[in-house]
């Protein structure tokens, strides 16, 4: 049997209604050991204008380079009271300690987003090497008929030089995937959807 994958459609301007419940801007917490980091950035369009209506999702390994278990127990935690006005932050807490590895934040009026997480370790690459620490990113906005996929890498990371995915990117554009360290230790990583400093996006 062979079906065809459903066609993607834009997230549109009103996704907050549907996606806010599971906004997760802080991935640290119970069971998440490792170096806590804060990443912030802005999303820009082809005119350099901020994108105020985007949503960024991240997926990453834990500090040991392990991804959250793919087969976990199916016991559902149900909420007795359905509060339609509740935002995601309160509800989206892990019921158990394991590191979830998933985050989702909307962009603000100035195109900015930020999240707090732990620096991931090195996960295996298909060619028997280890990947450099990285975070997989999906970008959704009005105007994008399908998501854009990119990655965040870390500055001062020697393993970047041998990373499976970075090696696929022309050298002159690799910097768009590597966060910059700000003076206070936070990391800055911007998304340029189009134009001269366009972020590298992956076919995935």
């Amino acid at each position, binding site marked *: 049997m062979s079906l065809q*994958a459903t066609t993607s459609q834009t997230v549109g301007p009103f996704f907050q209604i549907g996606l806010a419940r599971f906004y997760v801007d802080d991935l640290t917490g119970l069971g998440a050991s490792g170096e806590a980091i804060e990443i912030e950035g802005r999303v820009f369009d082809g005119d350099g204008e901020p994108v105020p209506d985007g949503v960024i999702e991240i997926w990453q390994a834990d500090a040991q380079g392990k991804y959250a278990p793919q087969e976990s127990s199916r*016991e559902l935690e149900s909420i007795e009271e359905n509060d339609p006005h509740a935002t995601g932050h309160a509800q989206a807490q892990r019921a158990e300690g394991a590191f979830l590895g998933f985050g989702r934040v909307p962009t603000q009026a100035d195109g900015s987003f930020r999240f707090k997480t732990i620096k991931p370790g090195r996960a295996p690459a298909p060619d028997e090497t280890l990947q450099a620490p990285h975070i997989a990113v999906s970008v959704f906005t009005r*105007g994008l008929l*399908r998501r854009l996929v990119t990655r965040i890498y870390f500055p001062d990371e020697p393993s970047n030089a041998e990373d499976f995915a970075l090696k696929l990117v022309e050298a002159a554009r690799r910097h768009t995937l590597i966060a910059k360290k700000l003076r206070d230790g936070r990391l800055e990583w911007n998304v340029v959807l*189009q134009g001269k400093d366009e972020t590298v996006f992956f076919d995935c």
Partner: protein
Amino acid sequence: MMQAMAKFRGYRRAEPGTQPEYLHPPYVSSIKRAPSKPLVYLPYTLSEVTGPSFDSFAIDVKASDLTRPHAGEPLGERIVVSGRVLDEDGRPAAHTLIEVWQANAAGRYRHNVDQHNAPLDPNFEGSGHTLTDEHGNFRFITIRPGAYPWRNHYNAWRPAHIHFSVFGPAFATRLITQMYFPGDALLPFDPIFNCIADEKARNRLISIFDWETTVCQQALGYRFDIVLSGRDSTPWEK
């Protein structure tokens, strides 16, 4: 511990023509937001073939009924939307998170950016979520959304639709799409619905009126199956 030794399989890339190009000029918002450089082909790694599991998130089992949260009944035509989340090989996506959002029956979203002068409904939020069951089935109870005007071009109106966000088993299978209704006169004019040339693929975004889903004396039923990328046939040996 086993991860480094695990065999894993990637996912199939989209059939040509079944997924939109980023730049689709009739959809004006795509013009300044579509990337101008070609995407970099990334063979799948563990980072793309794994994905978040939401079954230990606080799923609200009542959130699949969008007509329920308020004391009063929302206005409009009550409907049931059910379907399955499958992959291209027909395998169900079990226990996967589906989130939906939509306008009310008058074509108004409960969102501060929506300035359409149709009324808000105090009894309708327009959002819901659920997990699929072990066979990939889901079922929402809601109100048929109204069409609404937008500023893409002169006299532009979006056909009635419900937004669907689905994860599936992996980062690679993440999908956000929109479900439309059969017989909607606005469909031929909508640049978002018409973002791909493949008519059959486009028409799979239109739900099917379904007697099996229809509840006697209660609600008309529509079916909408969602198909996610299937697994690659050859495993990566790792």
